[in-house]
């Protein structure tokens, strides 16, 4: 019995001595199976746009072009001019956030203009997401901004101009993280 226990003890020491030096510099316990990809290949999958404009692609568009695209791709769900029905209202609602019937639209609520491009490109039109060109997405973004009175009808939206647009409700948000989050209400 005691011989057997001693053997186990010796074996454990030997394993530790052999294993620690090699594991110390690498990741302990992970097989390391990630396959490297080039930055260019990763970019082909990258759909997200940061509020500072990082990620916005080349291309441009205006509200006039956007109006035509809206009539073709968006009007069935969002109504003429983006007034809503049967789905989300996209235009108007400014000044309603303190009322019982809040009307949260792109114009009344969304804090960043870059989100419009990001969301249309990734998710719209609902039945055919990622089917529009970047020029078309810029044009629809310009249309919604112009309909909400945030940019002028003739303004061109592109990677330089879009992040400069200040949304009406830009300062309407209180960051809960990390100040209010990750703690209990005491």
């Amino acid at each position, binding site marked *: 019995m005691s011989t057997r226990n001693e053997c186990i003890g010796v074996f454990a020491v030997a394993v530790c001595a052999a294993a620690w030096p090699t594991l110390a510099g690498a990741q302990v316990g992970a*097989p390391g199976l*990630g396959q490297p990809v080039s930055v260019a290949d990763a970019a082909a999958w*990258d759909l997200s746009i940061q509020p500072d404009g990082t990620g916005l692609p080349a291309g441009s568009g205006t509200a006039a072009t956007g109006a035509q695209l809206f009539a073709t791709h968006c009007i069935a769900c969002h109504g003429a001019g983006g007034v809503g029905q049967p789905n989300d209202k996209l235009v108007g609602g400014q000044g309603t956030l303190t009322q*019982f019937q809040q009307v949260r639209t792109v114009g009344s609520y969304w*804090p960043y203009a870059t989100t419009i491009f990001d969301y249309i490109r990734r998710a719209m039109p*609902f039945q055919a997401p990622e089917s529009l060109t970047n020029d078309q997405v810029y044009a629809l973004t310009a249309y919604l901004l112009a309909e909400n009175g945030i940019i002028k009808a003739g303004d061109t939206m592109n990677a330089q101009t879009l992040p400069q647009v200040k949304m009406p409700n830009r300062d309407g948000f209180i*960051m809960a993280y990390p100040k209010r989050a990750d703690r209990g209400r005491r």
Partner: protein
Amino acid sequence: MTKTTNPVHEVVAGNGLLHRRLFLTQGAAVVGGGLSLLAAQPVDAEPLAVPPWMKAPGTHMSAYGSPSKYEAATQRFVGGTPNVVGSGVSFTPHHKLHGTITPNSLHFERHHSGVPDIDPAAHKLLIHGAVRRSLTFTVDSLLRYPTVTRIQFLECAGNSGGNLSPMPPQAPCGMIHGLMSCSEWTGVPLALLLEEAGVEKGNEWVLAEGADAAAMSRSVPLKKLMDDAMIALYQNGERLRPENGYPMRLFLPGYEGNMNVKWLRRLKVVNAPTMTRDETSHYTDVLLNGKALILTYPMEVKSVITSPSTGLALKGAGVYEVTGLAWSGLGKIRRVEVSADGGKTWGQAALNEPVLSKSFTRFRMAWHWSGGPATLMSRAIDETGAVQPTRASFIVERGERQNYHNNSIQAWAVAASGEVSNVYA
């Protein structure tokens, strides 16, 4: 058996709430005495007959089981968005369930553009952005990584939102509070994968994106991902269901459901929140002053009585088990209290073991219903000391209008008829 006090008669709060010892003693003391309240009265004069299912063999084994046909009504409530198939919610019918684990077929759903039909052999997870090595992981490669397993809840930020409307919705418990479920999740700690990619200093955020048609995306603090997040691959022992993110989803214990991105295909390390549509125009809390809370992540301490509740009428005066669920996105449940008199007095409920962090805890309370009107409520306190707020205090800052993150107390009124209804108390 020789206790001097009779726990059955030990009333701890108004309108008939009894000491939790009634349950904690596993019935031993009850057998010894106090049967006056619990003893069944012989009412069935029919002779006991041998049932037909004992007179012939039953059916064969099955490759994948299903519930009894007599439980066919135990289903999710499926809601939708007009004009768009695949966008909407389905609710877990908590008033028909017990324990703490939600069956996979009844886990709540929230989809933004339907459930994608993903071939796992053609699915990859990309980790890129501010990392030293951009990497992809196949499903098979992730199945080789060390795993963690935890029993934890998932709750949609919109859960219980109906109770913020001016009139209490008259619906079963699951239709009001069913956008939450609890499972045993198994997956790969995200810290392992982020360390493999090598996060560059000064970048505290990660954009997570799904492979659904909405490419649903959310920003997550790097700190949370390095703490207790996982890439979930299994739910209650089997691979994820398609509606819960097959073949892989992000799981962020305690954080609002929407952030737990399903069908996960991309994680991009960035230096600031991406401010996606779902973290700006949705899942933000507009206050009465017009300002809105944004990036409100943990689902705070909460409980709800699942029985009795609307649709589960009491059948005559006597002893009942009041039971429900308690949970907190900030840790363990420390205590649950139950009231039968609309919050005037409270008694401490028994908590079923184990009490786990960021998980459902089942509570039980013995109640002797006199047959008169009663208002049942539960309130939970978590290990941080946070107390579940009353509805009246919750709406002070937010008003009685559509909003997220409602963790206020649910009240069920029991009428003399035994019918139960949703009330604001």
